[in-house]
C-alpha cells in the first residue's frame, strides 16, 4: 500500500507552482475528473498570489480514508497572513484536487 503523504505533498507543490504562474492548464490536470474545475476561483487566487507576492507553505496533511486536507500557510514575504487548506481525494489516477 503506498503511503499518501508524499503523493499529496507532490500534488500540492504542483498546484502552488501552477498558481504562481497563473497556469490554468496545469491546474486542470491536477483536478479530479468528476469534480467541476474551479477555474474562476483558481484565477482569483492566482491573481492575488501574483499581485501581492503571496506564496504557500505546506504545514500539515490530514487524511481520513480517501479524503485529504492539506493545510498551508499563506505567506507574504516572511509574514504568515493566514492558514488555509484545500481538499484532495483519491481518484483512479491518484490523488487529485477536489476543492481549492
Amino acid at each position: 500500500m503506498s503511503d499518501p503523504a508524499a503523493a499529496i505533498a507532490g500534488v500540492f507543490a504542483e498546484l502552488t507552482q501552477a498558481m504562481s504562474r497563473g497556469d490554468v492548464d496545469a491546474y486542470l490536470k491536477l483536478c479530479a475528473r468528476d469534480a467541476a474545475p474551479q477555474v474562476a476561483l483558481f484565477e482569483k487566487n492566482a491573481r492575488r498570489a501574483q499581485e501581492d507576492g503571496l506564496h504557500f507553505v505546506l504545514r500539515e496533511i490530514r487524511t481520513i480514508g480517501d479524503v485529504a486536507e492539506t493545510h498551508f500557510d499563506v505567506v507574504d514575504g516572511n509574514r504568515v497572513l493566514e492558514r488555509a487548506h484545500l481538499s484532495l481525494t483519491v481518484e483512479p489516477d491518484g490523488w487529485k484536487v477536489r476543492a481549492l
Partner: protein
Amino acid sequence: MAIRGPFKNGFGGLRRPGGVGPTKPTAPTSTSTPPGGAAGGTPPSTGGDFAGKAADFAKQVVGPANGQALFGVQIAAMKGEVDVTSRSDGAPDLEAGQGVTAHQIAAQEAEIEKKRRASKGSDIYFYSGDGQIKEFLSPGRTSLMGHSLFGNVGLSSKALVLGGTLEGSAAPGLTHAGKLLVGGLHDAGVAQMGPYRGDNPALSGKEIVVAHKKVGGSATVAVGAWAGVGIGASLQPSKGSSVLYRTHLDKPDADALTEDKNAAVGFLREKAESVGLKKLRLDIPDIAKPETMRVGDELVVATHGGVRAGVFAFGVAVGVGASATLHGEFELHATKLDDHRVHLTVNPTRVRAMSYGVNSLGTVSLDLHRTESKSLTQAFVFDLSTPSGKQAYLDALSGNLPHQTGIALDKDRSVTDLETYVREEQLPVGVERTYLERADLSSRDIGARVGIPIRFGKNVWWGLSGLARSRAKVDHTRTGTDGDQTKRVETRGVEDRWEVLLSGTETVGAFASLREHTVIDEQGQRTTTFGGLDLTARFEDDRVMGLELNDEVLDVINGVFGTAIAPFAEAGHRQARTIEVKATLSAADLATLSQVAGSDATALATAKDLDQADLAQMLDDVRAAQTPADQSRAVLGYLSKNGIARLGAVFALAGRGAEELTVDTWSTSYHRPLDDARALEQKYPEPLALDAGKWSLVRRFGAAHTLMVSVDRAAAELADDPILGDKDKADVLAHLAQAAAVADQVASFDHLSPDEQQALRTMLDVGYTTTVAQQVIDRLDEAAA
C-alpha cells in the same frame, strides 16, 4: 498498520546507505545502491545495517502469527530516519495506523529535501493519517571502546522508543554486533460516544463517555556475527496493561468533559493526557473499589505479557529463521448492575505460536505460522452487600475464583466435565455464576510475498509489498454453559488473502459452523439438539477500485451459488467493502445431502471443477453419520480447501435454492458519514460566531462541506448497490440524511444579522479564498440579494 514490505523487515531494512562503522566488512555502499546491497547482488554492508538487518530479519521470521495478540515495537534509525511501528494484531492494545511508519518518514524526508532545494528554506510538516498525529526525532552516532555505537530515539504521539546498536570486529573479516531496543507506550484519552440507546430506564437520556489508559513496553535483543554468512538470535519480551472505562453522564456534563472551545488547547490537552503528562479528565474507578462505580458503569482491566525467541541464519542471497512465541493475557470485565451487585467476567487467554521463514534477496519470502490459543471465561454476579460476596469479588480479581477446582485453562476438559463442575460447585453466599465459556482456536497460515523496491528521494528507499498471497485454515470451538444448558459452536474455515500493490488487501473466506444446544435436567440427563449448520462465504476488499467487485465478487457468488445479482453499474469510490453470503442447513437439508445420488454428485463436481473423490468421500461420511451433528462434521472437514466452491456444492446438493440465501454487504461509504457527523456535532455544538476568525470559520465550513461530499457520494453508491434491499437502503439513506442535516446545521449562518453576514463576507474574501469560502460568499450574496 504493520508494514510488511521486504525492505521494511527484510535484509537491509529501510535505511540510508552510508552508515559508517570502523570495520566495514565488504562492498561499501553508495547512494545509488539498493537497500542493504542485497538486491543488487552484493552482501549487506555498513556497520549499522548489519545489526539492523539481523534484528529486522529476526523480527520478520518471528513476526506475529495469524491474528494473535502480540506487541512489538521496532526502531530503525540512521541519520535522521526513525521508524516506530507498533502492532497488535487482533488485540485492543494499539490502534491500526498508530506510530510513525518508515513509509511516512521516507516520504516526509523526500518531500522536505525537495522543498529545501526549491526554497532554500527549512520547512517541516507533520503528516496525520486517520486522526493520528505522528512525529519523529533524530538519532546520533558515536564510538565506544573501538566499536561503533548508534543511538536511536523515536517518538510518536503514543510511544517512545530508545535503542542502540553496538558493532565491532573480533578479527579481520568477522563482524559481530548486538542491538538493544526498548520501547514504551503510554496512551490515554476520553471520548464521548453518543446517547445511550439501551433499555435500562436509569440510563435513558444519558451520554456514553469512554476513558481508556494503556501502558506497555517491549524490548528487542539481537546478536549476530557475519563472515560471509551470518547467524544470530533474538529475544523479544513484552508486557503491558490497559483499562477501559465506560460510564453514562448527563449531556451537559459529558459535553463539558469532552469539548474544548479552543481547538489548539484541546489538542494540547489531549496529547498531554495521552502521554501521561496531564491527569485524565475523567477519573477511572479502581476495580477493587466497585463502590466508586456508578450503576451501569463498565470497567475492563487487562494485563498481558509474552516473549518471543528466534534464531536465524543468512547468506548473500538467502536467509532462514524460526521462532517461538508464548503470550498470555488476563482480563477482568466488571459491570455495576445496581447499588450492590457487580457482574464480573474473568478471562485468561494463552497463545502459543511457531513461525518459520525463508527470505531471498530481500524481495521474496515464504512464511509459515502455526498458532494455538485457549481462553476460559468465567462470569459471576457478586452481591457486595454480603461479606462473603465482597470477599469473593476481591479474590476473583487476582484470579482466585469462588470455585475453580478442576477447571483451568491448561486442563482439557470434556463438555460434560464443564457442565458437572458448574452444576456441582458450591458458591459462597452472595455469589451466583452466570456462565462458563471455553474457547479453543488453532490456525495454520502459509504465505508468500514478493516485494518491489522504489527509490524515493536522494538516499531513501521505499520497500513496497508488491504481491502477497496467503492461506489460513482456522479451527475454532466455543463451549458455554451455566450448568442447566450448554451451547457449543464448532467452526472450520479457510481464508485466502491477496495483497496487491495499489489494490489493497482482498480476502475470500468460507466458513461452516455447527451449532448444538444441550439442556440438562435436574437428574443430570442431557438432551442435545442440533441447532443448524451455518454456511458463510465472506468477501472483503479494503480498497475497492472501479468496478472490480463485479468480476472478483459478484460473478463468483453468482457462479458458485446460482444467484443472479446484477453488477454494479457505476465505478465506486475507494472504500472498504464486505459482502457476505449466508445460509443455514437444517437436519432435513443434511438428510437430503445424505441421499444425493452418486451420478448427481459427479455431474456437479464436473460442472464446478471440484475434486470428485473428495466430494464422494464427504457424501459417504454424511451417509454414514448417525446424527445431524456428525453429518455436519463431515461437511466441516470437506471445507478445508477450495472453500467457496465446496461451500456452494454443499448448498446445492442439500437442495437449497439461491433465493434462500442471505446476501448482505457493508461499506465504509455508508457508515462513515454518520460517524463523521457525530464527531462534527460534538466539535461544533454552538452556532457559528464571527469572533472565531477566518481560519476557524473556513475550517468549520470546510468540515461541513467534506461531510456533504461523502454523503452525496454514499447516496450515489447506494442507489447503484445491487445487493442491499429497499429496506436496508432506506435505513442507510436515513443515516445519510441525519449526517446531511448536521452538515447544514454546522455551516448555517441564518442566525446572523444582515450586517454580520456582510462582515462575514468581507472576512472570507481576502487573501487565499478556498472553495468552501467562495461557496459561502456566493450564498451570502444570494441572501443579501
